[in-house]
């Protein structure tokens, strides 16, 4: 099952490529070039997945992930960070801030799709476990 993904990416061409890939998998892709507006959108209605760039105008990817994790309902929200800054310390910082998966640009399309599927499956399992516990 696929759902809604919020893609936060200021490079129009890259956003277009990811949108193309995910929409073919059945995702509804919501593209935002600006961090601040994207965050508002996410807060308004939690998506099933967030794909996040690190270097963004308005609000950096690191700030966005921290603010997402502050909202209780979105503690488990899968967040995939895609960045051209692939240094070790960037990865560490991102993971500490709460990013679920960290990938560097340029990426292979297949890898991104695999990652998205993995994250989606984990979220589905979590949801199922949550429903069973509740039942």
């Amino acid at each position, binding site marked *: 099952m696929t759902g809604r993904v919020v893609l936060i990416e200021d490079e129009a061409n890259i956003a277009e490529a990811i949108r193309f890939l995910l929409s073919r998998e059945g995702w509804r892709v919501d593209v935002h*070039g600006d961090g601040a507006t994207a965050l508002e959108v996410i807060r308004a209605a939690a998506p099933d997945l967030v794909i996040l760039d690190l270097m963004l105008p308005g609000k950096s990817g690191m700030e966005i992930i921290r603010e997402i994790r502050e909202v209780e309902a979105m503690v488990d929200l899968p967040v995939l960070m895609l960045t051209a800054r*692939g240094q070790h310390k960037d990865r560490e910082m991102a993971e500490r801030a709460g990013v679920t998966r960290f990938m560097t640009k*340029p990426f292979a399309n297949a890898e991104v799709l695999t990652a998205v599927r993995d994250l989606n499956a984990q979220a589905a399992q979590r949801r199922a476990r949550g429903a069973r516990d509740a039942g």
Partner: protein
Amino acid sequence: MTSLNLLALVSIGYVSLLFLVAFWADRQALRGRSARFMRSPLIYTLSLSIYCTAWTFYGAVGYAARSGLEYVTIYLGPTLVMIGWWWGLRKLVRVGRSQRISSIADLLSARYGKSNVLAIGVTLLAVIGVTPYISLQLQSITLSVAIFAEADPARSYNESGTVFWIATGLACFAILFGTRNLNANERHHGVVIAVALEAVVKLVALVAVGIFVVWGLAGGLPEVLARIDASPIGRWQVDGGRWVAITFLAAAAFVCLPRMFQVMVVENEDERHLRIAAWAFPTYLLLISIFVVPIAALGLELMPAGSNPDLFVLTLPLLQEQNGLAMLSFLGGFSSATSMVIVAAMSLSTMVSNHIVMPIWLRSTDAFGGASVSGDVRSVVLFARRFSIAAVMGLGYAYYQISGGGAALAAIGLISFSGIAQILPALVGGLFWRGATRAGALAGLFFGFSTWGYTLLLPEVAAGLFSPQTLTEGPFGLGWLRPQALFGVEGLDPIEHCVLWSMTLNVAAFCIVSVASFPSPMERLQGAQFVHVFDHSAGPGGWTGSVAQSEDLMIMSQRILGPEEAQAFFQAAVERQGGPGPLPEPTPGFLEQLERELSASIGAAAAHAMIGQIVSGAAVSVEDLLAVADESAQLLEYSSRLEAQSVELSRTARQLRETNQKLTQISEQKDAFLSQVSHELRTPMTSVRAFSEILRDNPSLADTDQHRYASIIHDEALRLTRLLNDLLDLSVLESGQVTLNVSRRSLSDVLDHAVASALAGADRALQVHRDHSREEVVLETDVDRLAQVFINLIANAQKYCTSDTPELHIEVTPSDQQITIDLRDNGAGVPEGFRDVIFEKFSRVTPERAGGAGLGLAICREIIRRLGGDICYLHGHSGAAFRVTLPIQSKIEEIR
């Protein structure tokens, strides 16, 4: 035969003459008209002759009769000092003058931090050492009078009565002429002139007796020599050890004896007199000693056995019925004795009153609140000094009465000499060794004097106190403590033995304790002043300009110096300071001067204490401590060299630190740059890769999509190329390896080319406004590079200008040296916070990428700099505005 009456008459007449001369000299000096000869080196030299006392006058002949040529050592010591050590004496005199020293005790006290303990110690030791010497003089007078009395059976002669009256008379003389002025630094002209007159009398008398003996009695020089050979004197062998020891003692005593210090330093008029005295005084000694051996030889031959050889000078003429000569000889001896007693009493009394009486009085009255301003110090000091003279004279008289006057003159003289010599280490050390400390001086004096007392004074003078067993077996049967064979050193003459041990222990204790102890700031200060007296004849320092009451100081000074003198001194100080008031400011300099002035009257320690009562606060300031350091020229030089080195070092360290910082910064910048470059390269590459994979994996894609994605790949590839080009360009520009092609072209042409290039293929129109008439300036520069800058700026305006109808104004302002080109658009301009960074690499203002990596302006700046100009953002305009400044003449050669 000369009757006692005549003798008394002549004596009284002679003494009256002395009184008159002294009185006259004092009067002259007081009126300020003292004759030139009174201040001449001759008088100075003659006054030094108080070294030759009755012991020399009578005793030398006795000495020669008993010990042959050994008497020469007594003259050899001072001669060696005067000829070989005049520079040391000069230092002593300079110190004495600059520090207003009043006595030898004062000197040591001042040198070792104005220590009163030391002053008291030296004073007591001087009194102990000199008292027997004074009684020796009294004894010589009585002995000589007794000679005449023997020959005059008509009169009964009361020996002790004579001594008493002589002592009283001498005390009166000393009190009259020695305590006339309170200020010890004002010379006692009366006393000095009287002493000089007496010096002439004793020389004339001895030489007259000598001539009479040689040519009258013996019948010429050859006969005298033959008779000397025949006499026991001719058979005397020189004892090397004694010779050295006694020469040393005489030299030491010549410097250390209080009366010698008095005439040599305190009464010194002019330091240069020492230069004359350096040969004149040894000549005097030579003259006064030359006839000693002939007189002794003939005395031994002609006088009946058992006659006292000490009195040959007197008895030989009497034997020959030469009454006139005998009378002259008597006067010579009398002169020797009286001059010594007067000066010795004077110098001792200064010490006793300044260092014992005054401190006690100060302390006792201090309890009743401030001695400095309440009592009449002047009269107290005068009384103390007069009382001290009387006391010293009384002591001498008492000693004479107790000892019975039996011992040979020479023996007492030598004992006295070796006692006084104990001061020498502390004195010489103080003058030449900055490391000498008060504790060291005290230790040296203590060990030296106790050894002297134990090994020489007690066994010789007060033998009654010892049981004979103590001498032969040591106290309590301790053999190594035998007074005359200390630590088992036997076979030495008592004098030799005493000098050896006392000086060894003295010097050792002085040096060891000095090295081990730490001097107080005042000691260091004074030590520096003494040792470097020739470099700095400045004051002793010690007072800081704390709130001293000038009025109190004035009152106190009046009590010590006397009203007129104190007022004159204060007035002079006011004039020096140039102040308006009747009283001077209590500056440290003034306080120092005042202290020195007072110390001349009451000694360094007392003066220090009295000023200290008024001037509260620390006695030694940081400035003084710095002054100590300043004293030593070498130290200064050394320290400035060190300082220079340390400055050099710290500069090098700073440079290193800066270089290191710069390197770290450069390294960080390089890392940041690489990281930026990597990011900028990855971004277009991501698009290229993603879309090429899409195209590869989706062959069934619609044609329009295929075309669109291929276009994206193409655009991003172009972006990559552009980026790489920019990077290369920038790196070449920054490294300075760029080659510029200088040519001449009008600015107008350059701008035409730039506008055309920048706007070619632009998707929206940019209106460019120019004033061509002002652009007709011919530039000599790299035209292509300059065009590159303008293209960049115009393209920026075209891309980023926010206006709906974008316009660009290009304004050219030529001047003599340079030309400015302003490019202003009508957009929103660069936001405030970015204006400073727009010329940095990778700085971008707009969020939406316009295909630039943020290197354009950085490249522009580098180019303009290479061209010798400048580029900056113009504040105060609504739109984005840049100003390019260029030199009209090419400066490119210089830049490169």
